[in-house]
């Protein structure tokens, strides 16, 4: 009797947990699908760096933290998807500098963007993450030695980094990340649909479904 009560309670609580989790995630995905139509500007801001054809109908919006290891791992994966569907995909980078101090790296990126060196610098930061991050700590001063490789003018960069517009960009992106429920990086949305569950294959499936929906032929 006692055993039975304890066992049944365990099963009920675990089942309830899984059911509630499933329901919650489903509801969130539903809600954001609607958000995507009505509030597209929350996903893509005028200041956001984009890559790919300007008339592409599939938007991959990635909330990224330059210091996030998974973001670095996903960078080539996303590039591969874009190569699979040339002219159909646009990548939009949004900042979610959740690591302590990584907004410094974002300021470097934004200043590099002013010199037209954004994507080179982002690649450089991802591929040399071990140089300037350690145990989830960010050492912005170690980025300087790398930057010449991306063709960045350091003197100009240093001046541009203090631009108050950069702080506004970071603030806006963090606010949008909060609105969209992004609490981990990378946070992916494909045409406003959140990537759920997280992973390379679910992302591929989401992109393929969206490409098929936008380009039916």
């Amino acid at each position, binding site marked *: 009797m006692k055993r039975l*009560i*304890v066992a049944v309670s365990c099963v009920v609580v675990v089942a309830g*947990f899984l059911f509630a989790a499933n329901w919650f*995630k489903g509801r969130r995905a539903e809600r954001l699908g609607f958000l995507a139509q009505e509030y597209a500007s929350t996903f893509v801001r005028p200041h956001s760096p984009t890559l790919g054809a300007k008339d592409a109908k599939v938007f991959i919006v990635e909330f990224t933290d330059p210091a996030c290891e998974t973001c670095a791992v996903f960078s080539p994966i996303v590039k591969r998807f874009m190569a699979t569907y040339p002219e159909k995909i646009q990548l939009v980078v949004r900042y979610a500098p959740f690591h302590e101090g990584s907004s410094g790296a974002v300021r470097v990126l934004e200043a590099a963007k002013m010199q037209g060196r954004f994507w080179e610098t982002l690649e450089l930061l991802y591929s040399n993450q071990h140089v300037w991050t350690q145990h989830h700590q960010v050492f912005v001063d170690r980025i300087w030695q790398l930057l010449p490789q991306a063709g960045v003018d350091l003197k100009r960069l240093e001046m541009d980094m203090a631009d108050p517009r950069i702080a506004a960009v970071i603030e806006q992106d963090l606010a949008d990340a909060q609105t969209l429920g992004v*609490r981990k990086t990378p946070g992916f949305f494909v045409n406003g649909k959140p990537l759920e569950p997280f992973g390379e294959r679910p992302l591929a499936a989401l992109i393929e479904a969206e490409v098929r929906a936008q380009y039916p032929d």
Partner: protein
Amino acid sequence: MTVRESSRGDKPDLDWMLLFAAWMIALLATAGSLFFSYVMEFAPCVLCWYQRICLFPLVVILARGLLPFDRGAVRYGLPLAILGWLVAVYHSLVYTGVVPESLLPCSRGVSCMEEYISLFGWLSIPVLSVLAFTTLVAILLTLQRRASP
């Protein structure tokens, strides 16, 4: 002690039910806290972690005291519940602003004042924690009293 022996049988008596209720609260609170952090993706702050340290073991300790019934579980569970209650009360005071945030050990990372949920305007996560730990302490104290009349 012959009366108490009956709790060791297969039929649940009042003492067993009380301990079961305490275990259920610990289990539900654990499930709820995991739901907040893994499903709703709220990052737990430092004070939340201290409360979890007191809460999670209770699920195991109290379950062990249920099968078979062992009053010793109260002895081991009660200190954890009281410590958890103290942290939960402190957290609520911080959360409502009674204790200034600058006194906190958690100025880095997630702020302990971060408001994630607020049901009916007063039911926040720290308040949920206080409710759970208060009930736990009350039940475990009752069990202890019943052992030594």
